[in-house]
């Protein structure tokens, strides 16, 4: 019996995932527990292990997106075919079953844009195909409207008897080209080889035109907007559209912070070291408890004031960014925060975060200081109400009491949602953060 390989549900809020890589080739034998593909959600990337053993039959190619519990492939026994009904049952809108449960699922579009494979066959033909275990997509329909009728299945079976009874190797699987007459003519005119096009359904004029276009565009690389990129794109656009952003900047002297940091980092292991960012996170967390509006969320007609601070810390990745969450950052000691941020960042870069570690933040700190940026206008991480951007910390000339002095400074850029937060409140909050950093006794390092 063919085992379905499903898109797993990897966290509370996951609804779909993108297959970023198949870790085993199509047709290879896999053992139970072998990682077989990588899933990328809007938050994280995960490896999915085989639940059983068998010959892997890939249904969805790399780069395609599948709903949770949708079938992405099969594990087959020797000589087994993909079940016929898989070819034409519509995908369930939602699913709740855990991956290990047997789930009735459906064949899946090869790419998100494409329509599901719908084999036009009569009920009798389907019954016959089911009984004889053949894949209707391999059968050519001769009935009215190109429908596969029972007789087509019968003649296919006759044909099969004449072929050697071994599993065909890859490449041999493809059936004769199925295409509409217009498609055939067009392909001939445009010099397109229909056999090179996808054969999941009868080729139409549209497919040929798409192929022609692709050929013309030549070298230009086109990749699907998918996975993390797609999610970031969506989130950024959504935030920018939903929330009226205002960004205010404030210069903070960091000499005292430098002194504190030096003191705290003396005699301490690499893991326990505290960064400026940690100090800023802790200061922001403390200030947030005093200015709940900055820690709030708009939920339809209501404002939610959270009685905790879950601090999102933006971490840049090679091909995007992710925001792991330090939960209860206001209640944790500076050192705890530092350790957690470090751990989260490391695991983020290794793509080893769980979905729950990247959701639920109430405020975010994002730091571009290491890239030499002085100030910027960060975009709020929805559904939060504000985000704090951190600029480069360096020594700058400062006018103090009428004379120029050299001080260690940085600029904090606070973007806030003006629906929820007024300018004065935001300014007071930012001032409070500065105060906590310039007079860091409020940061309470002793809890460490």
């Amino acid at each position, binding site marked *: 019996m063919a085992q379905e390989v499903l898109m797993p549900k990897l966290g509370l809020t996951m609804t779909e995932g993108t297959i970023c890589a198949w870790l085993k080739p199509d047709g290879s034998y896999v053992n139970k527990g072998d990682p077989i593909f990588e899933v990328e959600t809007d938050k994280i990337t995960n490896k999915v292990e085989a639940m059983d053993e068998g010959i892997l039959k890939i249904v969805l190619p790399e780069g395609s997106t599948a709903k949770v519990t949708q079938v992405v492939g099969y594990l087959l026994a020797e000589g087994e075919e993909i079940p016929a009904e898989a070819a034409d049952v519509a995908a369930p809108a939602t699913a709740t079953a855990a991956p290990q449960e047997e789930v009735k699922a459906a064949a899946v579009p090869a790419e998100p844009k494409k329509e599901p494979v719908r084999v036009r066959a009569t*009920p009798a033909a389907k019954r016959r195909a089911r009984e004889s275990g053949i894949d209707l997509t391999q059968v050519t329909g001769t009935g009215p409207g190109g429908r596969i009728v*029972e007789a087509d299945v019968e003649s296919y079976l006759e044909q099969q008897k004449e072929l050697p009874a071994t599993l065909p190797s890859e490449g041999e699987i493809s059936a004769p080209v199925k295409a509409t007459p217009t498609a055939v003519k067009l392909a001939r005119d445009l010099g397109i080889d229909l056999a090179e096009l996808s054969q999941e359904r009868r080729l139409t004029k549209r497919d040929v035109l798409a192929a022609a276009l692709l050929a013309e565009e030549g070298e230009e690389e086109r990749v699907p907007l998918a996975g993390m990129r797609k999610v970031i794109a969506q989130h950024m656009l959504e935030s920018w559209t939903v929330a009226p952003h205002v960004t205010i900047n404030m210069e903070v002297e960091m000499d005292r912070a430098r002194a504190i940091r030096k003191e705290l980092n003396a005699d301490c292991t690499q893991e326990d070291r505290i960064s400026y960012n940690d100090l800023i996170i802790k200061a922001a967390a403390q200030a947030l408890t005093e200015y709940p509006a900055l820690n709030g969320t708009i939920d339809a007609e209501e404002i939610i004031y959270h009685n905790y601070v879950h601090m999102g810390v933006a971490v840049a990745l090679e091909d995007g960014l992710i925001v792991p969450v330090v939960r209860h950052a206001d209640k944790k000691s500076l050192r705890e925060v530092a350790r957690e941020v470090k751990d989260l960042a490391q695991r983020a870069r290794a793509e080893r975060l769980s979905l729950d570690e990247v959701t639920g933040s109430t405020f975010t700190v994002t730091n571009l200081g290491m890239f030499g940026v002085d100030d910027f206008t960060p975009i709020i991480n929805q559904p939060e109400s504000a985000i704090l951007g951190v600029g480069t910390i360096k020594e700058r000339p400062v006018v103090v009491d009428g004379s120029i002095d050299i001080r260690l400074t940085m600029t904090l850029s606070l973007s806030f949602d003006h629906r929820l937060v007024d300018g004065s409140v935001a300014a007071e909050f930012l001032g409070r953060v500065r105060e906590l950093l310039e007079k860091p006794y409020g940061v309470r390092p002793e809890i460490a």
Partner: protein
Amino acid sequence: MRQLSYSEAIREALRLEMRRDSTVFLLGEDVGQFGGCFGVTGDLYKEFGEDRVRDTPISETAIIGAAVGAAATGMRPVPEIMFCDFLTVCMDQLVNQAAKMRYMFGGKAKLPMTVRAPVGGGISAAAQHSQSLEAWFTHVPGIKVIMPSTAADAKGLLTAAIRDDNPVMFFEHKLLYPVKGEVPEGEYVVPLGRADVKREGSDVTVVATSIMVSRALEAAEKLAAEGISLEVIDPRTLVPLDEDAILASVEKTGRVVIAQEAVTRSGFSAEIAAVIAEKALDYLDAPIKRVGSKWAPIPFAGVLEQFILPGTEDIIAAVKELV
């Protein structure tokens, strides 16, 4: 075997049942001396007299009401409604009284009555004298519905209907009245609820009712020349329906055309189609096709009427869409 026309066969059934059972009597408009609008009751008046072959006022509610009252009190009335179109004016007596009396009374009443009514177009009788309203009655629990397509069936089914202890609607087709066929002599009963395979075939099943049976047979003849083999099934009684016979044929051929003269929409063919879809979907090798009248009242002018009504060619066209 001797040949009788459809109307002679009906009359013979009436005559034999009236001789056999003194509680059987006829009533209706012009059924007596006049012999019935289509001559079906003919000379029965002479043999049985005006008491048992009763001319009624043009008063359909009274006719059916009288039949209901008489049936509930020991008689076996056989009312005739001159055109099935006129059933609309006595629907309450049929649908709310006759059909439900037994049930409402907890099984303590018996309503043996057979309502005869001609259906069908083809005689330029226009919209109020040409309909086929059989489907309406198949929607009412408590009523049985019969549509004979041949003289022999007419005799056998009418006999069974009169002997049945329930209200039965017996729909005769006007154009069939003069059509002759072999009819067994003497007592002849065709049990209700048994379909008849009018022609065996292997490629496509045609389930046809009333006059569409003969049209289906014509189509079968023509298509045989082209190498297409039709199996023609006549359900004969719509309620109760012989589902097994229909399903068996569909399982054999995998293709089905359902032909009725009534307008297609919500016709009895829809019920047959649903039964097949529910119970024999896996045997279908093509969509179910329905043949019936187009969606308009029956018009007067012959050319219009022929356009609306389904014919042999419509059956042939439907079959060809499936093979």
